[in-house]
């Protein structure tokens, strides 16, 4: 029996005095009712004077006016029943998998209050090992796009119809059809494949299936499959392992950014770029455009796309293989090829040769070279083949030809492809499709292709759906939903099952897809937790049979390369403002595509080679395969002479389709920009129309005719000066030979200043011995957060930038503002080209040839350095001293803090920042009309992507990188709860987490055992602008090129 103790508030309660009882019972003792007030008879006699009356009147009017002011309606709905796994204020992470037809990654999705807000790579599970790319990170924003279809559409109507109505019509049509074609991006989902198989079984004509599945990839790699079919008997794409390749030769393959499973390769490549490791890979690149991969190469040669085959032949021959006589190559290309041959031989099979061309001749040569090198089984694994990109150009082309000729199937089921936009047939194909009896689409938008469909049964967003994937033979992965579907959308898997008669619609909380995927799995929970598992592989032991055919790539006086940009790629995410505003890592241009051309050639042809916010670039009109595009010409150092590059993925929505507001041009004062016919203006032009189908292959290069046309075009670039002007204190680079043999002073000299010693003589002393200020009390006390950035590892992919934007609610400002130099990115990627008067980027030539005017002009084929730059959190921060109201201050953990609430917006801090990393809110980005189309924070849906841990800034205040202070607080709190100190590795900033090559290390510098501390003491570590004396908390590490 328990003892119930009683406590009293006071003696009154103990004694239960009458006054206490009265007080207790009368909860609101001083309240008098209105009736009793009005009923007071004295009131009638009371007189109020004229003054009193006026006072009351004035007060009432003022009060009424104030009340009439509209207060913003804020909606906050509390949980009635708290969901088990949602705690307000705490993030929940879900392991999942990303696949969109061109990228694949194991990911982890962060949700807050049941909203997915952030995606990062899964470093613990899956073969992508945490590697992502800007598109994968930014895809979370696509979830909250208000123009995503919200319900089933019937052709010719903007009203939604019931899904049952569409299903009925579709099933009826399928039953009657003699031929059904399912056009789909490569299906790597076993469950979907099963559903398609079932569809084939269900709909038959005379015992034969009426259903045919055609896989169509926006970007085709079918030449690799075809070449392997010829050489090895099976059309496989092998797994490549760049981490084992001591010598890498890429002929036009942008394998760090857009080629095949680039995010996997970037991680692998990153591990081979450590100059302190047992070995460092040697990377040769032969290419026409300056790609991200090319910008990282140790040796880069400029060739025309038609010369790919020549280079490959030359290498094959040099290796002792059976290379045919090659056409004459430039001296530079020959020299680079000779060096490549030497390196390949030296690597003894631990090497990899890849080619970006979709020509069969090239891919056969690549196979022959790799066979000659003995790379199969070392860096190339045919056993564990890649299941992505199964599209066959010949098959697709045959189908499209039939459709255009009107000999189309009775029913076309389009599982999210967009060939009207991204195939060269384009509009003609659209006309053909309009004649098909029934076209069903599962596209998420009423896009170029699906807008002509009889029915669109929109698929879920990737983050809303259950899915399973088999990206490689040995790998099975699960994608789990991280949010209840936002709109009336229908899992594609469910749709296929319903149309195949295998399931009934399950409504909003449908478990049809889940059941299909989890069927028969006892350990499904574990599988979902890990997101993937290994699958046994049937060994494939082929023999190599040599084949060669003539290249289908035509040469011309001028040739064009149709390439992908890392942010936009095939254009499927072109309504994603984060990606549109992501500066291209090489050109630094946002919101546009353009013609890249060699600046020296441009000069001789009369094109402007410099531009800024008010001075645009000249236009040129190019004719490729019968398509004419007029685009601005961008001066791209490193572009091979007589070649141009045009990015694919632009010009979406040429007929004003509802593919997202940010996919169209906006006006200077807000709103969508319309042309003279009242149509929305596309961003850039569609270069897919320039593709050609030669000998059964879609080719991404072609001969081109070009002509300068009148007019200029304003370009929005985040960087308009491209060299480092010989400044040695910003970027530092060296070559491996020098790094390994010489001491630190040779490649990473410390800054010194002169001072007088006690004998009155001049002596040199290191810069840290000079200080006007008292040391900031962050040394050796508590935490001191720091960061190192390894310029050797950084490949400039742009993932960190997008991750930072997503994590920190960085506003999108649109093309016009970027052009004016007002992008808000907290983290920027500076890209520098070497000039002819520099030995390397940032190292002046000693022969007296150096001049600033020459240093402004990049070399013809320059070496490139990518330098991520964010707030340096200086311990002697110049921004802190000049703020009149102390809005930016130093924390006792070494952070330079920005107090938005206190900021009055003088911008003095930004002016006084030597690194120019501070960003000012020039407008009210979350509400000003100029940004309605581009800034996701302006609508109710888009706002859901905002990170609730980070304030959305108002206009007139300064902002900048905070070192993800919300994450710092969170790891400190976690450590405190667990009664321990913060461990090294606990803290990861958004940028360090997103980096596929682990170039960024963060941690507590006061912890002498931490990686950051050790890294900062490395002989490669230096501080940018150290001699200014601001004592930053960021160290860079010298870039080491694997040159002789």
């Amino acid at each position: 029996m328990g003892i119930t103790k009683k406590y009293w508030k006071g003696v009154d309660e103990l004694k239960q005095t009458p006054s206490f009882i009265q007080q207790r019972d009368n909860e609101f003792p001083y309240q008098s009712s209105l009736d009793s007030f009005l009923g007071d008879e004295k009131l009638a006699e009371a007189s109020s004077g004229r003054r009193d009356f006026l006072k009351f009147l004035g007060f009432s009017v003022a009060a009424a006016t104030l009340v009439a002011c509209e207060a913003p309606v804020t909606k906050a709905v509390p949980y009635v029943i708290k969901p088990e796994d949602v705690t307000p204020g705490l993030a929940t992470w879900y392991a999942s998998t990303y696949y969109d037809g061109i990228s694949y990654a194991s990911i982890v999705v962060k949700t807050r209050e049941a909203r997915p807000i952030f995606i990062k790579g899964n470093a613990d599970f899956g073969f992508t090992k945490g590697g992502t790319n800007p598109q994968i990170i930014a895809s979370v924003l696509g979830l909250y796009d208000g123009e995503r279809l919200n319900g089933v559409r019937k052709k010719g109507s903007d009203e939604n119809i019931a899904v049952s109505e569409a299903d009925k019509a579709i099933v009826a049509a399928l039953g009657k059809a003699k031929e059904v074609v399912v056009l789909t991006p490569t299906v790597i989902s076993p469950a979907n494949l099963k559903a398609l198989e079932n569809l084939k079984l269900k709909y038959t004509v005379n015992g034969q299936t009426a259903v045919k599945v055609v896989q169509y990839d926006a970007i085709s790699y079918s030449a690799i499959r075809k070449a392997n079919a010829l050489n090895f008997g099976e059309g496989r794409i092998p797994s490549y392992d760049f981490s084992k390749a001591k010598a890498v030769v890429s002929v036009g393959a942008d394998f760090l950014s857009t080629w095949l499973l680039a995010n996997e390769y970037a991680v692998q490549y990153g591990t081979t770029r450590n100059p302190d490791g047992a070995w460092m890979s040697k990377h040769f690149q032969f290419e026409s455009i300056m790609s991200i991969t090319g910008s990282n190469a140790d040796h880069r040669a400029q060739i025309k796309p038609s010369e790919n085959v020549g280079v490959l032949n030359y290498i094959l021959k040099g290796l002792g293989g059976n290379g045919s006589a090659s056409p004459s190559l430039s001296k530079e290309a020959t020299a680079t090829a000779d060096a490549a041959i030497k390196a390949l031989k030296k690597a003894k099979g631990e090497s990899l040769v890849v080619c970006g061309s979709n020509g069969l001749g090239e891919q056969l040569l690549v196979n022959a070279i790799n066979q000659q090198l003995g790379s199969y089984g070392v860096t190339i694994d045919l056993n564990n083949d890649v299941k992505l990109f199964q599209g066959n150009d010949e098959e697709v082309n045959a189908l499209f030809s039939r459709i255009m000729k009107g000999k189309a199937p009775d029913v076309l089921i389009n599982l999210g492809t967009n060939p009207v936009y991204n195939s060269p047939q384009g509009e003609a194909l659209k006309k053909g499709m309009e004649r098909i009896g029934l076209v069903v689409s599962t596209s998420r938008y009423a896009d170029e292709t699906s807008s002509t469909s009889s029915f669109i049964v929109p698929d879920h967003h990737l983050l809303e759906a259950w899915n399973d994937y088999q990206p490689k033979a040995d790998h099975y992965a699960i994608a789990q939903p991280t949010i209840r579907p936002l709109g009336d959308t229908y899992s594609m898997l469910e749709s296929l099952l319903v149309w195949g008669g295998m399931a009934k619609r399950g409504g909003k909380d449908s478990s049809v897809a889940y059941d299909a995927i989890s069927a028969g799995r006892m350990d499904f929970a574990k599988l979902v937790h890990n997101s993937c598992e290994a699958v046994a592989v049937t060994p494939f032991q082929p023999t190599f049979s040599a084949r060669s055919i003539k290249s289908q790539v035509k040469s011309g006086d001028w040739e064009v390369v149709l390439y992908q940009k890392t942010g936009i790629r095939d254009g499927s995410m072109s309504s994603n403002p984060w990606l549109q505003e992501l500066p291209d890592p090489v050109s630094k241009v946002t919101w546009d595509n353009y013609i890249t051309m060699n600046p020296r050639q441009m000069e001789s042809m009369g094109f402007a080679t410099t531009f800024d916010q008010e001075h645009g670039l000249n236009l040129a009109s190019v004719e490729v395969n019968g398509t004419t595009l007029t685009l601005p010409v961008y001066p791209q150092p490193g572009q091979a002479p007589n070649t141009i590059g045009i990015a694919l993925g632009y010009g979406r929505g040429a007929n004003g389709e509802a593919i997202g507001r940010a996919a169209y041009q906006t006006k200077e004062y807000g709103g969508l920009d319309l042309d003279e016919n009242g149509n929305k203006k596309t961003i850039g032009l569609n270069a897919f129309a320039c593709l050609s189908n030669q000998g059964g292959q879609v080719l991404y290069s072609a001969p081109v005719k070009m002509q300068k046309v009148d007019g200029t075009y304003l370009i929005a670039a985040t960087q308009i000066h491209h060299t480092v002007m010989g400044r040695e204190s910003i970027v530092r680079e060296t070559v491996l030979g020098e790094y390994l043999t010489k001491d630190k002073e040779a490649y990473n000299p410390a800054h010194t200043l002169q001072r007088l010693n006690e004998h009155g003589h001049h002596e040199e002393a290191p810069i840290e011995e000079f200080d006007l200020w008292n040391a900031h009390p962050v040394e050796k006390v508590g935490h001191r957060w720091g960061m190192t950035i390894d310029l050797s590892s950084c490949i400039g992919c742009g993932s960190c930038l997008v991750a930072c934007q997503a994590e920190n609610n960085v506003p999108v400002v649109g093309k016009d503002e970027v052009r004016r130099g007002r992008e808000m990115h907290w983290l920027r990627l500076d890209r520098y080209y070497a000039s002819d008067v520099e030995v390397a980027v940032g190292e002046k030539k000693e022969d007296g040839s150096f001049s600033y005017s020459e240093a402004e002009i990049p070399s013809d084929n320059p070496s490139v350095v990518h330098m991520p730059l964010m707030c340096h959190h200086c311990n002697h921060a110049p921004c802190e001293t000049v703020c009149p109201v102390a809005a930016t201050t130093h924390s006792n953990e070494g952070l330079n803090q920005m107090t938005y609430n206190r900021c009055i917006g003088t911008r003095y801090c930004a002016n006084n920042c030597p690194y120019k990393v501070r960003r000012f809110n020039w407008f009210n980005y979350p509400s000003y009309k100029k940004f309605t189309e581009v800034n996701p924070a302006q609508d109710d849906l888009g706002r859901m992507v905002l990170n609730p841990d980070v304030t959305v800034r108002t206009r007139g205040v300064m902002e900048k990188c905070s070192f993800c202070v919300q994450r710092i607080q969170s790891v400190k709190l976690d450590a405190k709860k667990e009664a321990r100190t913060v461990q090294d590795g606990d803290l990861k900033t958004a940028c360090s987490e997103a980096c596929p090559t682990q170039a960024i290390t963060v941690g507590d510098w006061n912890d002498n055992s931490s990686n950051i501390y050790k890294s900062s003491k490395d002989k490669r570590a230096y501080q940018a602008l150290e001699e200014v004396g601001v004592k930053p908390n960021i160290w860079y590490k010298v870039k080491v090129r694997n040159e002789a």
Partner: protein
Amino acid sequence: MQKEAAIREPLILGHKTYHDVTEDVCKPIEDKAPRMWYILFSIALVIGLYGVGSICYLLGTGIGVWGLNKTIGWAWDITNFVWWVGIGHAGTLISAVLLLFRQKWRMAINRSAEAMTIFAVFMAGTFPLIHMGRLWVGYWVLPLPNHFGSLWVNFNSPLLWDVFAISTYLSVSLVFWYIGLIPDFATIRDRAKKPVAKRMYSILSFGWSGKAKHWNRFELVSLVLAGLATPLVFSVHSIVSFDFATSVIPGWHTTIFPPYFVAGAVFSGFAMVQTLLLVMRKAMKLEAYIHTKHVEYMNIVIMVTGSIVGTAYITELFISWYSGVEYEAYAFLNRATGPYWWAYWSMMTCNVISPQLMWIRKLRRSLLFTFFISIIVNIGMWFERYVIIVTSIHRDYIPAAWSMHYPSHIDIAVYIGTIGLFFTFFLLFARYFPVLALNEVKTILKGSGQSYKESPDYHKHH
């Protein structure tokens, strides 16, 4: 009465009596304003209101309506601020420093120079206010007790020093100017016939009755204020220059700035005085009081300060090379040969070459030439600030962040608007206030009046 050498040019020309002085100064106030005044006033007012409208748009929309960007956080705003503060320098220098040095020629010009100072400081003060991202919390720059806890201003910040410097300068100048006006207001009050005007001037003159006691106090206060104002003349622009000098930006971080800025300020201030007075003396028929000699004196000041400024420019260039600091050297090379070379060479031409022409006596005594040069000097001084501010930050340490500045039409409208407002105020001043310190001028009438100097008695008496 002060003695003066006979060969000195008289400061007051013609046969003026004490009454004539009173008449000459008061007439424009008492008469109907000429048509020209209305025309000029309307133009100035329209331009001024356009500027006010632009400022309202700026405050309503955001600083983004200007042409600034992530690299260039200040451009026309602070250029205009420094330019106006510079112009506002002449008044106090004339009234305070020249008073202490007993330069009697100042009496003809000090009133309007001080008025100009005050209006220029008003205009100058506008820019630091409107350049703030959040003007509505701008009062946080004042060290006020507050409810934010122990939140205090940052006394390390030169911007805060600016707040104190400018506000002190404005208040002292205003008081100084007003003290001087009191006896003159009283004179106008005594002559006024219309009751409203009489009442107004009576209030303005604070009951001045011209007793010896009053004059005694007047003289004392003037002297004390002159003593107070003199250091301010040097402190204000020194402190304004600290905004740049204490920063780490090459081209800003320069120890030469305080004297160089003060000299530049006096230089531009005198130029503005010339511009205004050359028109005013003609329009208000004050040729007898403000004449070639005064203009020549001012031109000498322009010449000397212009030479100081020129020396500073050359010194800066030399030091940028001699320092061996890469960034500093490039900053100056970029000024002279970079994308803003035209601004640099406009500045050099206007500020270094043009004042040197004043060595030629004929030119410095030419009113037309002076008027022309006075405008050139102020154009040059605007460019000087633009060059210092914009060309330094548009290409500083990190080349990837380099940018260009192009003004928006709001930038231009706000600037032109302040010129409109300045002239609006000045025209009102010229219409309703005694533009000459008439009671002070009377003190030199016998000492330096032409008729007295030429009379045979002048030398006998003394």
